[in-house]
């Protein structure tokens, strides 16, 4: 690490100090002061490392020299703080982190669902040897797209008043987001195969929803309408205002027919007191309004409140279109215009007719940026435009007519789509809308396009052997992993990555602080879902050792058992014996009961701890013997003793205490409890112990001085009796 960390004390702030990361880039070091809340003076030894997500972990070590001066409240080992660095989101309009997380959560299930479908279909097509894409598939993609789209906000009207305000021209809707607009654009061009023939009409609807977004950078029809709406209340005779006619012609140019008709009906000639002397004028206004509301549209249906007449069939549409234009021309040549005395009305109504007849220069002056002009062209000049090539050519033409100095991000995206340039679309998605967008949009881009699929799925050298699609998913997964609440959904994206997904998932899981029980259980659950047994075993080992180190012996043993970690369990067994060894002969052994319960039956992995379990059984029967003279219990105890002594997991240092504890059994009144071979076994063990005592590494257990001798004597007596018995 080239970065050097210095401690910086801002003057005047004695109680707070800041950490300044020093950049190796000497030309223009950017300094970000981080407030860590630690009291100064800060010890000279610091360690900084990345913690989970965007957190920086700063460990402050106590310096040895200042030991005496350090106030008592400072902890012995120093202090560790975690600093959260807040990142800025790419799309500034959704700057609420919680809202982003909501989108992230919501997109998990459509994404996972689509991946499952894809895998199932791939398996099926392998069986059938047929192409994997068919009608079904485009249906799934559309379903996916719609689900994602619904997450990005709804276009429901927020005004709930039942009484319609006649002067309310624009509907009061929630502010749309560019993200949603971009997603819908992609949906129109890539996902919605069924409505491919109606792309122009879909774009008309799209602009109607999102024209307001362009207002930030360029003037737009929406902006004009908003401004006019604000003025409307103060205007007496609207038809005298040029803003009124400007608003009408602009709205007509982009096909917002309902607004146009609504505005036309505000015309002064409709007022009852005016009707008498402005009859002709009113007739003309109404005629134009009727013509507008009868405009033929080539689309399946229209939403409620929108005007026009739908034609599903192309030939029907052509007929209606010709008829409609003929009516317009007829009206245009009508003699009534001469009788219309209101100059403004006459000129502007004629202008509206020109718009409807597709006069290029009128359309250009009625619209404000090229997308609006483009839509106007679709509506009034070339309603049959189809195919991306001709649409692209038209877009180029419109851009020349209405050039913009710095195109809006949605415009750039649109050009990329129309130019059939997948790279540009990807770049725009990534640049303007961030990793979420691109990870989810690739599904749309590849739907049904072989070239795009090859481009996105081809493994690339410069990306470390992964495809573009995978690299974007990995990036998104990385973003998810950096947050404590979203890391758990990252596995769904990682697992869909063929090359590096599983590897990164393992790293992600290893990085989680599994000593928190909740995190550990989450970890185990994720491992269970993706068959990562070794990872979960390791997590349990880490947790087990952590618990053990912190004095929670039961939990430590439990998790190590879960992990099947014999090596550590045996180690632990050795340590446990030290504790047990002290209490082996007294009553406090009872407190071990719970732990021994945990060890369960022999079938479980207990490592050297198996001894404890057997010892407990032995201890229990011995207890019964002491309570009353029960030959049966005594026999059981004897058997348990032999089992314990035979078992290789019983540590040597327990031999003597065990035998000493069972003196009563060895000196049993009446018949001897142990037969000759059993007694010989015990005697042999005793001899082994005597030899071992001579070795330097032998650990003496605190036993009464004569213990060895009294055991030896008892064993000899028992042997004698047993021989006589046999």
């Amino acid at each position, binding site marked *: 690490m080239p970065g050097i960390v210095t401690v910086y004390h801002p003057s005047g702030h004695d109680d707070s100090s800041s950490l300044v990361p020093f950049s190796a880039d000497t030309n223009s070091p950017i300094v970000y002061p981080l407030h860590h809340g630690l009291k100064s003076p800060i010890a000279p030894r610091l360690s900084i490392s990345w913690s989970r997500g965007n957190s920086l972990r700063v460990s402050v070590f106590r310096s040895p020299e200042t030991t005496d001066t350090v106030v008592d409240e400072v902890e012995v080992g120093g202090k560790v703080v975690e600093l*959260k660095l807040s990142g800025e989101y790419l799309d500034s309009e959704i700057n609420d*982190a919680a809202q982003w997380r909501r989108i992230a959560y919501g997109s*998990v299930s459509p994404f996972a669902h689509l991946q499952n479908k894809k895998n199932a279909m791939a398996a099926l097509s392998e069986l059938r040897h047929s192409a994997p894409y068919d009608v079904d598939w485009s249906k799934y993609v559309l379903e996916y797209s719609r689900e994602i789209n619904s997450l990005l906000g709804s276009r429901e009207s927020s005004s709930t008043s039942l009484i319609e305000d006649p002067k309310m021209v624009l509907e009061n809707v929630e502010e749309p987001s560019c993200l949603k607009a971009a997603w819908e654009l992609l949906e129109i061009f890539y996902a919605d195969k069924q409505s491919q023939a109606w792309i122009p009409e879909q774009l008309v609807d799209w602009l109607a929803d999102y024209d307001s977004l362009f207002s930030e950078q360029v003037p737009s029809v929406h902006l004009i309408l908003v401004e006019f709406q604000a003025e409307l209340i103060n205007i007496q005779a609207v038809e005298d205002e040029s803003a009124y006619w400007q608003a009408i012609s602009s709205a007509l140019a982009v096909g917002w027919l309902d607004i146009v008709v609504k505005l036309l009906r505000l015309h002064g000639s409709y007022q009852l007191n005016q009707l008498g002397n402005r009859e002709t004028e009113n007739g003309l206004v109404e005629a134009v309004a009727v013509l507008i509301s009868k405009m033929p549209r080539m689309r399946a249906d229209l939403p409620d409140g929108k005007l026009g007449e739908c034609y599903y069939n192309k030939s029907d549409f052509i007929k209606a279109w010709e008829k409609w234009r003929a009516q317009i021309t007829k009206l245009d040549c009508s003699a009534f215009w001469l009788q219309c005395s209101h100059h403004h009305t006459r000129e502007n109504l004629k202008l509206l007719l020109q718009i409807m007849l597709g006069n290029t220069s009128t359309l250009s002056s009625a619209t404000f940026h090229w997308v609006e002009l483009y839509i106007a062209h679709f509506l009034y000049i070339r309603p049959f435009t189809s195919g991306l090539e001709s649409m692209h050519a038209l877009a180029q033409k419109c851009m020349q007519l209405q050039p913009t100095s710095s195109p809006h991000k949605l415009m750039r995206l649109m050009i990329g789509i129309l130019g059939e340039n997948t790279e540009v679309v990807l770049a725009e998605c990534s640049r303007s809308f961030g990793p979420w967008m691109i990870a989810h949009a690739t599904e749309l881009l590849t739907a049904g396009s072989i070239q795009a699929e090859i481009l996105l799925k081809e493994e690339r050298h410069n990306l470390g052997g992964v495809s573009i699609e995978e690299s974007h998913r990995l990036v998104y997964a990385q973003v998810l992993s950096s947050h404590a609440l979203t890391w758990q959904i990252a596995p769904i994206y990682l697992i869909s990555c063929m090359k590096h997904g599983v590897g990164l998932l393992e790293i992600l899981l290893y990085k989680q602080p599994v000593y928190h029980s909740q995190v550990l259980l989450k970890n185990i659950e994720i491992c269970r879902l993706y068959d990562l047994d070794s990872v979960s075993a390791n997590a349990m080992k880490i947790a087990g050792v952590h618990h053990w180190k912190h004095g*929670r012996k*039961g939990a430590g043993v*439990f998790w190590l*058992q879960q992990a099947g970690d014999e090596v550590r369990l045996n180690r632990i067994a050795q340590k446990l014996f030290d504790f047990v060894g002290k209490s082996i002969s007294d009553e406090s052994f009872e*407190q071990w009961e719970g732990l021994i*319960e*945990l060890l369960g039956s022999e079938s479980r992995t207990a490592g050297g701890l198996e001894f404890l379990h057997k010892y407990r059984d032995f201890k229990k029967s011995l207890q019964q013997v002491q309570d009353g003279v029960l030959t049966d219990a005594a026999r059981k105890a004897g058997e348990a003793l032999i089992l314990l002594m035979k078992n290789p997991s019983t540590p040597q240092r327990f031999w003597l205490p065990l035998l000493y504890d069972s003196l009563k059994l060895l000196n049993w009144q009446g018949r001897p409890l142990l037969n000759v071979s059993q007694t010989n076994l015990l005697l042999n063990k005793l001899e082994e112990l005597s030899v071992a005592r001579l070795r330097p590494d032998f650990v003496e257990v605190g036993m009464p001085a004569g213990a060895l001798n009294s055991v030896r004597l008892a064993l000899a007596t028992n042997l004698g009796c047993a021989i006589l018995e046999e």
Partner: protein
Amino acid sequence: MATETLKQFHRLPLSTYVDALRFLPPLSAFDRYVVVASFNSDSDETSIEIHALNPSTLPILTLQSSFTLSSRISSLKVAQKSLQNPLIAASTFAGSLHILFPNPIDVSFESEVSIPEKTLHLGPISCLDLQENGSACVSVGEDGRVNLISVGDSGLDYRRIFDSKGLVSYTAARWASPTEFATGGLGNSLQWWDQRRPGGPVSQFKGNWAQGATSGVVHSIDIHPSRKHTCLAGGSYGTVFAWDLRRPQQPIILSGIDVGEPMSSSSISESEVWEVQYDTFMSASNRANISSERVLPVMICSEDGILAVIKQGEEPTELLAENCAINSFDIDRQNPSDVICSHEWESIAFLTRA
């Protein structure tokens, strides 16, 4: 698996993570309040919030009051001291315990008494339970301590009644009567305690589990006030079982791995069962099926997003199957058809059963 028709189901998104939630005992006939232990990941702030719930056709939660704590909440319980005097108990992962007394008029937090961290337990308090009348509280932890906290007018008083010194870890606790309570821990173990017989657990359950079942952790316990001899527990691998003190070595398995016959019991979930509660909602058909032999219907929520009702000897009824974990739920005692549950993905769901 049967699914139950819901009369109403609403997901209410929040912008904070919900660690636990409870219905607050009713303060008046018209108000309904939900206590939420929430964690705001953006500001790293934990708080106990009281939201008003209007169960109209479009329920919404309106924040009424909130109390900030220093560490995340591990367990949240509510009780009613006397009529219209609710209290809220919360334990934290840092080890502190807080009792809050919301004002019965406007549910603002009037007073709080607490025991600081490192006093009751070393490390986190894994679970606490309040007595029904709110007079006492039991807390357990992974450190193996069992504490009794008496909630008096003068403040809190605590007494350590057991310390296994880390040899046994406890993960769940539940009162059975004013003197008895049950605890649960690792290895699907349960302990029965009686204050009249101090020194350790009175009875221990360590069933004759088939291999694998011993590896579970008990996350939640419930005891029905009318059947105090039966202790209901839920834990890892979708295990839900009842422990009858009269037959202490034979668990009644309601879901999960069964003894010997792995296929005999249907398992509604395969992962952690976070909470179990006796389901007090009775439809007419249910009432006819109640028998003293059978375990009463049980509601569970799980890590794999299941909210379901399990009846002994019947197919479980699924209420919800979500894409994310359901951390916690609560049944409204006054209207048992209403259930509220918290999702891992920062939202709360409110549902009404038909």
